[in-house]
């Protein structure tokens, strides 16, 4: 029913229950409550204001752009937008948390319940519930390797706006969790509210994992903190669910605790420093007033939303008659979908949508992947690719020649037509020329001609190959077949 991948323990089946808390850096120039810059990779403490460093008497003032980004994200997650929300202080001591509290939203978040549809390989869509989305400050960074007894603190990241997006415990396998994260990243990138860069920490996930016998109440969960790639999320869920199953099957019980995933060792382990019983003493931040806006603010933002992946996929299926799978692949990244649409009906372009999907997915993606390039870095523009496909469509070149042409386009950035012209790759559609070539081959191979006449299909293919070879692959294969049949009377 849910597509749950059950774990086969030696005492029976176990179901894994997963909830994800995604921490997504808001795309903004300046921080949530200060005017310091947010760019990644600057010199230590160079993007820190006195507010971020929590100097005495410093006060927060909210960046309204970050609020708009959070609301847009909420709309993209089909979620309820709360017109009244409150910033709370979450109190705990940590050297990368200069204020001694994080400004967050606890009881009244800006975004409430929503839903994300994830795409499973089975093709069956699954709905994953969103519990809430709230805005909060990120913490700074602690570096531990510089010194044996000291840590180094860089506050550049402190105060950068984060959206914490909390799912309901609706996922039942590592695959679903991976699909959820992929979809979440896709939506965020479409909206331009988070760049989704997990390597730079722009998007991180806390993974809540528990196991239970199918159909029974939820088990005790463990939270695996700060997992920074989809692959690691998958691995962490796998090892953590097995760890829990083994404990339970040995008659033990699960401690609710926070754990870390160690990708090198392929294991999760309990964090050594347990924050004092997690008593964060939340209370409304008295330096700020409640965040309030009216419905028209939300409506305006809704009106300005881009077409999101699900809608785009549906349109690709209906408008271009693509398969669900192809459409799904094309819409994962907004840039890819845009590229594809430019190939199909961009200005100065235009070609068969299905042919275009094949070319983009198989040839272009394949080559880009091998070269480690993004679609934006593609040496072949959408218009150029469209030009190539058009040459195939109108029989100017064959599909096989087209692949060679594409390879040269990728190397040189030259238009397909220019390559075809320069190299004389234009398909031979002159039946006289093809007849001459066929005659030659038949005369050179009387033995095979006899076999052909006797109906040997293998030899038929061999003849086509010989003719193509004689014409450097340029002969129109359809014509070659027709003429061979005529000449040999097969």
């Amino acid at each position, binding site marked *: 029913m849910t597509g749950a991948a059950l774990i086969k323990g030696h005492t029976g089946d176990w179901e894994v229950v997963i909830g994800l808390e995604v921490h997504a850096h808001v795309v903004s120039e300046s921080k949530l409550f200060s005017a310091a810059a947010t760019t990644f990779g600057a010199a230590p403490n160079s993007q820190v204001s*006195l507010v971020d460093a929590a100097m005495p008497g*410093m006060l927060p*003032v909210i960046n309204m752009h970050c609020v708009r980004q959070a609301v847009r994200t909420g709309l993209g997650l089909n979620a309820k937008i709360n017109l009244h929300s409150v910033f709370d202080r979450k109190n705990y001591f940590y050297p990368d948390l200069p204020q*001694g509290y994080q400004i967050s939203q606890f009881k009244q978040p800006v975004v409430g319940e929503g839903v994300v549809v994830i795409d499973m390989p089975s093709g069956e869509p699954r709905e994953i519930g969103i519990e809430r989305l709230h805005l909060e400050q990120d913490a700074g960074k602690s570096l531990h390797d510089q010194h044996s007894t000291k840590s180094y603190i860089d506050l550049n990241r402190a105060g950068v706006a984060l959206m914490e997006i909390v799912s309901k415990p609706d996922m039942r396998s590592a695959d679903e969790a991976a699909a959820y994260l992929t979809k979440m990243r896709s939506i965020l990138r479409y909206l331009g509210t988070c760049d989704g860069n997990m390597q730079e920490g722009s998007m991180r996930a806390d993974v809540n994992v528990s196991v239970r016998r199918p159909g029974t109440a939820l088990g005790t969960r463990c939270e695996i903190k700060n997992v920074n790639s989809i692959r690691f999320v998958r691995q962490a869920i796998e090892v953590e669910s097995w760890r829990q199953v083994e404990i339970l099957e040995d008659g033990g019980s699960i401690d609710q605790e926070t754990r870390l995933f160690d990708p090198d060792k392929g294991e999760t382990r309990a964090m050594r420093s347990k924050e004092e019983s997690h008593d964060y003493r939340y*209370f409304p931040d008295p330096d700020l*007033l409640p965040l309030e806006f009216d419905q028209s603010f939300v409506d305006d933002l809704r009106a300005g939303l881009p077409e999101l992946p699900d809608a785009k996929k549906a349109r690709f299926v209906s408008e271009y008659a693509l398969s669900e799978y192809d459409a799904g692949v094309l819409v994962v990244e907004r840039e890819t979908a845009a590229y594809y649409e430019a190939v199909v009906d961009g200005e100065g372009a235009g070609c068969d949508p299905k042919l275009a999907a094949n070319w983009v997915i198989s040839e272009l993606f394949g080559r880009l992947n091998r070269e480690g390039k993004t679609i934006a870095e593609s040496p072949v523009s959408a218009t150029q690719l469209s030009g190539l496909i058009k040459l195939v469509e109108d029989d100017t070149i064959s599909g096989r020649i087209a692949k060679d042409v594409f390879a040269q386009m990728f190397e040189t950035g030259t238009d397909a037509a220019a390559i075809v012209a320069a190299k004389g790759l234009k398909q031979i559609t002159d039946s006289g020329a093809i007849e001459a070539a066929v005659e030659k081959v038949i005369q050179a191979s009387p033995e095979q001609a006899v076999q052909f006449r006797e109906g040997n299909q293998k030899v038929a293919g061999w003849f086509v190959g010989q003719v193509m070879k004689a014409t450097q692959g340029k002969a129109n294969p359809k014509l070659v077949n027709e003429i061979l049949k005529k000449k040999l009377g097969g």
Partner: protein
Amino acid sequence: MMSALTDLTIAEAGSLLTKGEISAVDLADAHIAAMEAEAELNAFITPTPERAREMAAAADASRARGEAGLLNGIPLAAKDLFCTEGILTTAGSHILQGFEPVYESTVSENLWQAGAVLLGKTNLDEFAMGSSNVTSHYGPVKNPWGRAVGRDLVPGGSSGGSAAAVAARIALGAVGTDTGGSIRQPAAFSGIVGMKPTYGRCSRWGIVAFASSLDQAGPLTRTVQDAAIMLRAMASHDPKDSTSVDRSVPDYEAALTGDVRGLRVGVPAEYRLDGMPAEIEALWQQGITWMRDAGAEIVEVSLPLTKYALPCYYIVAPAEASSNLARYDGMRFGLRVDGADLTDTYESTRAAGFGAEVKRRVMIGTYVLSAGYYDAYYLKAQKVRSRIGEDFEAAFGRCDVLLTPTAPSAAFTIGERQDDPILMYLNDVFTVPANLAGLPGISVPAGLDREGLPLGLQIIGRAFDEETMFRAAGVLETAADFTAKPPAL
């Protein structure tokens, strides 16, 4: 000449400066001399005489260029809770040892922009937590009025150093902060005027925070007019403070018309406390008579929840403080006491850096916010606070200002009321309600008790109606004609 200069009001000094009869440097020198002579009061943590001379010279120069601001050349003291660029700022706490801000608070910057001269940073209760200035790491401040009775008296608190400096004629005025009465109560104890504006009128940016929803900067002066002049210079809309209000700053001095005919003066019945000294009650009655005689209409009003204001305050303020003071952790500035590990360093630093009263309030605040107690204490207190605000609103439906005593007693001896924190907290019983409701309040010196110590009366106004409050206070001041001064050294 020197004593004459230090006896001036800000208005008088301003007029003499304008006429060119005195210079800012003269004024600064006279006050620097007074500051040095009165060192035994311990009113200052960090005197800044050199800075004062430089600023005074600059003030004279700008006046010569015809660019004199509202407070050009006026020597002032600043409570050591205002961050001042390049000048040690301690909040009266060991934990800010050596802390020199790289920034200037908005309020103090406004004062310097208006041409004022900084004499020094004044002593205060640690993190402004106290009503007697005895919790300062830098020792207690002596009230100059102690000389009248031959005992060491508290100046009140927490702006005790600021009050003592103004009362002892060391500064023409001072800036303080008032979270539960920390300007008005020491003003009453010291025979001067102390004024807390409406919450949001002055920026809190750059003021070491005690309780964010209650803190407000204000002036301590010798006259109501001076308070009006100073407030005009201090107040501003500050984009850096989310709770600073975007309203133009009126000319408060112009509001001092001396005319209160028809003004409805509310007298809240519940401010008549059991066991309140007869002298306080008598002074209050006297104040009522003065206002009536000046043509005001006296209205009996009810503020039924008055007795709950203090306990409400002692949940809200410590809760906010427990969080506001978390940044004093030894990591980025101030004191660090190295421990065996990180937690040990935190705990050692904060144990050594905070005094007993601060620790007590941080712990109370931590407790009332902790899991399982939040609803019973903090949430309950914020609901009671809403009701206290509603009570004031209802009262202001029937009157324009309120008249109350400022404090339930005159200044007491240093060391008294130390054993029972609640006894100390009761000093603020008449001042705390205005903080809870965010309202402006002013204490005006109105008389002497039988020992010859000053007592104050308080006018509380509607939110952002400082003008009416000043007008009433001006009339009260004229009627009281308080001319007593603390004995000079």
